[in-house]
């Protein structure tokens, strides 16, 4: 044991430390992603890393798992200083990472996925029987009833996550790093995942957990480490912390997601949905949205809360014209827009900010400015050619009004942070001059500071008469700027509340178990 370094950042705990990172620094050119970070992983316990986007969480995890090497600093594993040159070396020492995006082959079955790249060979052939036996054992260990010969693509996302974990365990991982493992899981699947995590820790496996979902992470964690701008700002065991402590250390100040804008009257009904029924777009024999009726007035902010699969996204996509309803109709003001195309609906004044901004929101090959003007360029193209000056003015105004931090309109869209990319998507739709703005999970994957800015922007626009409908799966976000909260459960509205509701009431109405 040669831990001759100081521990002034982090109180020594009596628990056994498996891995400790000391004075880790990493720079990319002039950017200092990590500055002198100390980090301990305790045997058989969960350590959660909190931090906004760009705080350096992923960089630190990539260093611990050998994906990248630190500029300076030491990694001490079981009291010995180690250097990982690549992920395989770290894996050989028992450190595995499960990335946010699953690295599984959907066309192969469970067994082949678990043994992908390290097949058991006997007499020059793959020993499928042995692989299957081991897979079965793994599934029993994880108490998951999954057939090893089941094609992966037939499993639910949560089960696929379990397979990814099973693969890590089968490589005798002692330290398992999970980057946002719950971002695509339903509440029930999260419970299963947490049970697996508890099983693993009881067997001595150490878990490093990263999540934007603070409430959820608090439920499972034993230790919390907070990073901000590449610096470790706080460290504490679970018993000493609460949600407010995390948020305070993440953003560095008392922060709040805003309150419903007041001091003005709502206008006429801007959007009316009547008896909307949407069949399962994946071909299932049920309706993802079932007889939904909803009215939103100009200037009103409505929050749609619900779990994954509650029908929120389908409702929004249908309103925007991307999905065809089975029955029912949608009125924008007095105009029936049920049969219009996406483009016609945008022209009439209804715009959607989609949930997945990378996949559905942005064109990665175009610049910030071109993304901002994309939805409105057809509008102001008078004659044949688009007037450059008009477009540049629109882009400049948009960048200012939604406060995008960018080096200029020509910057590549990929150079922006997640929060700023989201602002570009919102700015693009606002540039079309909508009367109704739908936002599907506008806060997904953006940090808490950017969230507050997005909500502030929406509140301002509502004051100017925009009807805003946003969906979320975080209760804290319901209780921010929304005048009215609608809870969806299995395609139906299960409850409506005004802004004085409590978190527990919302969660109960969504069919979610109240855990606090």
């Amino acid at each position: 044991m040669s831990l001759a370094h100081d521990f002034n950042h982090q109180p020594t705990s009596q628990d056994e430390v498996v891995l400790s990172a000391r004075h880790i620094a990493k720079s990319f050119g002039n950017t200092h992603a990590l500055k002198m970070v100390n980090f301990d992983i305790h045997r058989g316990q969960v350590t959660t890393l909190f931090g906004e986007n760009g705080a350096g969480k992923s960089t630190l995890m990539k260093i611990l798992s050998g994906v990248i090497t630190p500029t300076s600093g030491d990694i001490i594993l079981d009291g010995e200083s180690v250097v990982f040159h690549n992920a395989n070396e770290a894996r050989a020492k028992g450190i595995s990472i499960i990335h946010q995006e699953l690295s599984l082959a959907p066309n192969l079955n469970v067994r082949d996925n678990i043994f992908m790249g390290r097949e058991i060979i006997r007499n020059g052939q793959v020993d499928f029987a042995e692989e299957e036996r081991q897979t079965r054992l793994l599934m029993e260990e994880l108490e998951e009833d999954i057939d090893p010969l089941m094609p992966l693509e037939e499993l639910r996302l949560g089960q696929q996550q379990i397979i990814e974990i099973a693969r890590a365990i089968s490589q005798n991982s002692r330290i398992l790093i999970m980057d946002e493992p719950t971002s695509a899981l339903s509440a029930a699947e999260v419970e299963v995942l947490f049970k697996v995590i508890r099983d693993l820790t009881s067997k001595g496996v150490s878990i490093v957990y990263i999540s934007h979902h603070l409430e959820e992470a608090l439920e499972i964690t034993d230790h919390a480490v907070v990073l901000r701008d590449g610096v470790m700002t706080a460290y504490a065991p679970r018993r000493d912390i609460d949600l407010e402590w995390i948020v305070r250390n993440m953003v560095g100040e008392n922060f709040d997601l805003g309150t419903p804008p007041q001091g003005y009257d709502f206008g006429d009904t801007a959007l009316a949905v009547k008896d909307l029924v949407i069949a399962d777009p994946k071909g299932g024999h049920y309706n993802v949205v079932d007889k939904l009726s909803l009215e939103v007035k100009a200037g009103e902010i409505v929050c749609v809360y619900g779990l994954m699969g509650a029908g929120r996204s389908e409702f929004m996509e249908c309103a925007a014209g991307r999905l065809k309803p089975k029955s029912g109709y949608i009125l924008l003001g007095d105009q029936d827009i049920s049969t219009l195309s996406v483009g016609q609906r945008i022209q009439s004044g209804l715009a959607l900010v989609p949930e997945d901004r990378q996949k559905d929101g942005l064109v990665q090959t175009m610049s910030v400015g071109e993304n901002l003007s994309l939805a409105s360029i057809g509008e102001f193209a008078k004659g044949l050619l688009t007037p450059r000056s008009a477009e540049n003015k629109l882009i400049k105004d948009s960048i200012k009004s939604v406060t995008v931090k960018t080096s200029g309109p020509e910057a590549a869209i990929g150079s922006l942070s997640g929060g700023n990319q989201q602002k570009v998507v919102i700015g693009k739709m606002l540039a079309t001059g909508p009367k109704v703005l739908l936002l599907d999970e506008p806060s997904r994957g953006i940090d808490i500071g950017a969230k507050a800015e997005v909500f502030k922007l929406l509140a301002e626009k509502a004051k100017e008469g925009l009807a805003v409908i946003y969906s979320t799966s975080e209760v804290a976000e319901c209780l921010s700027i929304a005048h009215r909260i609608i809870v969806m459960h299995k395609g139906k509205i299960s409850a409506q509340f005004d802004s004085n509701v409590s978190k527990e009431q919302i969660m109960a109405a969504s069919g979610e178990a109240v855990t606090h």
Partner: protein
Amino acid sequence: MSATAKTQPAPHVPVKKEKLDIGRLLLEGRAFFALIAIIIFFSFMSPHYFSVNNFLIMSSHVAIFGLLAIGMLLVILNGGIDLSVGSTLGLCGVFAGFLMQGVNLEFLGITLYPSLWVVVLLTCGLGAAVGIVNGVLIAHFKVPAFVATLGTMYVARGIALLMTNGLTYNQLAGKPELGNTGFEWLGFNRLAGVPISVLVLIAVALLCGLMLSRTAFGRWLYASGGNETAADLSGVPIKRVKIVVYMLSGICAALAGLVLSSQLTSAGPTAGTTYELTAIAAVVIGGAALTGGRGTVRGTILGALVIGYLSDGLVIIGVSAYWQTVFTGTVIVLAVLLNSLQYGSSGKSR
């Protein structure tokens, strides 16, 4: 070539405000530097290469591939591919030849001899029709572009063969008393010393360059090639864009067919076989990404010039046709390698 190199600056190229990076400059201007290198090399190898007349002759060869390549560029920007352009070229050439022979309407007992401009318009219309078939198949019936255009490639070639029974139309000159002369004008005449075919290419290049950089349609094309769902959700009429793109590609192929049969003074049903591959090569050498959303007319014209000047240069210095194929192939693979280098590094920008 100086005129064609002056098309609008690429809208997607990020403006670099830092000091110029030589490696980056070489990478982004690779088609241009390759062209310069080819010209210098062959000028040393042959005294006949570096002359205005030779450049004009070579450029008139480039015109055919250049026209096809511009149409192909539009399709590739959209994230598709058009394998039918070579066959469309052949079909349109034969169709033009057929019209020049006179259309015999037996039930009326008359023979129509359409004038040259009618022939040109009808031929372009046929090219557009083939393109629309492609576009509708791909946009509305969700047939993969590769398969749909592979099918039309066979069908168009087959119809061209059926129309002539496998023979070639040679009487394209027309007769003064019928008022349909002038077909050779496209392929042979010159305006201010520049072959008409080159002028056609320049005009098409300028129009397409303008369309891509300055019209809403151009932006829609880049957007739907870069991310179709995002474009759709932004109100871009992605299906219409797609159909128009294939239609334009068909018209470009028809123009190329007219120029080629005029240059050859004959219209054969097998003209343009495998030309689609040369067109794709020119687009790729010009720096466009086969995944869509990236590429410029300027680059594509440079790509067409690289291929044309290289193969004509090899002919002039007497390298065998077999070696020409090897060289062309090597240039294409090199170009794709450099493409992945360029987009691979810029895609990971943080």
